[in-house]
């Protein structure tokens, strides 16, 4: 934008002094001073922000979780406190290429597995007029629906972070993209596989048997080093946005295989099969409705299966002239493996109500209800947040698991109803 053009045109301080009789000295000093200028230009947030070429942002957050029932399993605790930080550094050269670095870390008071660091992003993005090339650790989201994310296949879930599954681990990748009036083709080579994170012994929201995260089983002889591949075509056609892809690689969703460890204790070992998967996502607005669909077909070590989730969101704007917007979400999730599915959402209906009072603090409340259609299992969710001042944000999440039936994948979470309060400082 305008500001950055100005900044690109303004010479570094060192160069401005390199004239006339001082040229000789400058010739020696130039590389040093220019390097200094470059470094200070990159690192100085004030100058960078003004230029629009360097941006630093991120957050530091304190979190407390309280589980209001006694735990189902020995070692588990009633509550935990933690601190997390995710700074983000971004630099762009000449509008053509950019560097993004997003480290993340959390320290948790009770669960050592939840104390972890990750590089969410560290990638170099080259923009050519005809194509785009990204190399490094990146994050990609594909999907349309609100409750279940089926087609989002590139990044592994950082499950230990939050049970909503929306936190992702950084994925090493080469990405080649080409866009035109005909749509966009995205090709990814994913040369390293990230294993899913799970809560440890002391953590809640886990199965009764320990997950032996350190001893995963891979179908691929190359284990983590298998090169996965995905190609996606996406386009906006009329009012409709859609994407369709084919993925060949190691399944991000592990099967938890019951066995014993070296000490003879029962454990669950994550088994990562090799799969081929095709996926479709679609968003279609008409009037105040948006129709959404995600569908996949996946086959690999196990029998092929089909899964889909879809529904609609209806927005009521400025209800009764109160200024409040209401969003009503109706979705359904299906997995043709039924009880054998690696997801609890195999035949589930979801209802959500999003309340946005449109106040200066951007208050947002989401009420959700997930009902299994085969048994009595249901989950009630409240997510609420608002800004405090201009840099702070407070969020409250409440998850209640009700009537969980013994066959339900969430059965081990029956005592894990919790409230999570987070206070974050954004910069």
């Amino acid at each position: 934008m305008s500001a950055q053009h100005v900044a690109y045109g303004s010479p570094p301080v060192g160069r401005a002094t390199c004239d006339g009789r001082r040229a000789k000295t400058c010739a020696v000093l130039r590389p040093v001073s220019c390097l200094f200028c470059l470094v200070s230009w990159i690192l100085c947030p004030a100058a960078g922000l003004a230029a629009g070429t360097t941006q630093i942002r991120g957050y530091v957050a304190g979190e407390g979780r309280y589980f209001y029932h006694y735990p189902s399993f020995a070692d588990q605790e009633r509550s935990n406190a933690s601190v997390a930080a995710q700074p983000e550094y971004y630099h762009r050269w000449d509008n053509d290429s950019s560097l993004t670095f997003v480290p993340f870390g959390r320290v948790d008071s009770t669960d050592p597995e939840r104390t972890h660091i990750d590089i969410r992003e560290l990638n170099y993005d080259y923009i050519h007029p005809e194509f785009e090339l990204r190399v490094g650790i990146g994050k990609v989201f594909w999907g349309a629906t609100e409750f279940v994310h089926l087609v989002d296949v590139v990044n592994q879930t950082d499950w230990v972070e939050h049970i909503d599954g929306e936190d992702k681990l950084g994925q090493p990748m080469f990405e080649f993209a080409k866009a035109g009036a005909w749509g966009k083709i995205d090709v990814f080579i994913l040369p390293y596989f990230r294993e899913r994170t799970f809560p440890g012994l002391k953590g809640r929201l886990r199965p009764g048997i320990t997950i032996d995260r350190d001893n995963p089983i891979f179908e691929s002889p190359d284990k983590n080093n298998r090169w996965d591949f995905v190609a996606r075509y996406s386009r906006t056609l009329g009012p409709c946005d859609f994407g369709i892809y084919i993925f060949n690689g190691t399944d991000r969703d592990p099967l938890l295989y019951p066995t014993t460890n070296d000490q003879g204790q029962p454990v669950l070992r994550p088994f990562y099969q090799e799969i081929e998967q095709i996926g479709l996502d679609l968003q279609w607005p008409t009037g105040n409705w948006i129709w959404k669909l995600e569908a996949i077909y996946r086959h690999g070590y196990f029998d092929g299966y089909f899964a889909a989730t879809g529904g609609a969101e209806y927005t009521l704007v400025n209800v009764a002239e109160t200024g409040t917007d209401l969003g009503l979400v109706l979705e359904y999730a299906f997995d043709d493996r039924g009880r054998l599915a690696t997801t609890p959402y195999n035949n589930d209906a979801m209802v959500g109500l999003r309340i946005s009072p449109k106040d200066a603090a951007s208050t947002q409340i989401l009420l959700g209800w997930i009902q299994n259609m085969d048994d009595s299992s249901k989950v009630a969710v409240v997510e609420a947040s608002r800004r405090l001042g201009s840099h702070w944000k407070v969020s409250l999440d409440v998850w209640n698991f009700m009537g969980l039936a013994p066959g339900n994948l969430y059965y081990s979470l029956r005592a894990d109803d919790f409230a999570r309060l987070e206070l974050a400082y954004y910069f």
Partner: protein
Amino acid sequence: MTQRHTRIIAVCGIAVSLAAGAPAQDPAQRGLAVAQEADRRYHGYGDFTAHLEMILRNSRGQESRRDIRIQGLEVAGDGDKSLCLFDSPADIKGTALLTYTHKTGDDDQWLYLPALKRIKRITSSNKSGSFVGSEFAYEDIAGQELEKHTHLHLRDEVLDGTDCLVIERTPVVQKNSGYSRQQVWIDKAEYRTLKVEFFDRRKALLKTLMVADYRKYADSLWRPGRMTMTNHQTGKSTELIWSDYQFQTGLKAGDFSTDNLLRVR
């Protein structure tokens, strides 16, 4: 969102022939002629970038701010495209809103959420909702395509020493608007919107917009520096301060693609 204010401005104006004393037209013809002339004068910018500072004040005088970078692109034969990029408050930094306005039918709108790297389609047919908690509704900002209103010339009036035309603007599709009608003051000399009164569906005065500090860019483009929207029913107000206007910056359609939302910073 880019052309929102300009649109409002654009809707005012009177046909040159009228000003010159051409044969009288009925109020509807004259109103449309004014709106068309203002629209014509607003356009021809090609593309632009600007910085927008938004100051929200509640009835107790408490303030909160948003910083937004805006870029817009004229599209031949259709509505304009715009991209809003939020720089503050910090928790929504990096959020982007992409809008394709259309002369008829619903606009297309996408929201980019940087934390999830998610591009979300959002509904845009009902434009009466607040824009990021401000006193400006989406329709005040992006819903002012000529074809979406009928116009009526009400009277000529002097506003703060400036000769103005007063135009009434009524939405064609009532259910998608929060207003029963708007009354717009447009100066006769340059067809700039100076004031707008918004009437709610019960026909009561809801809000008043005052537009000030106009500057001329690129020889012919008048753009305001300050817009103040006051809500008479809640006592809240929102001030928009525009700066760093640049025109013909070389933006292309590709800069307004959904794909580009993943890259904008």
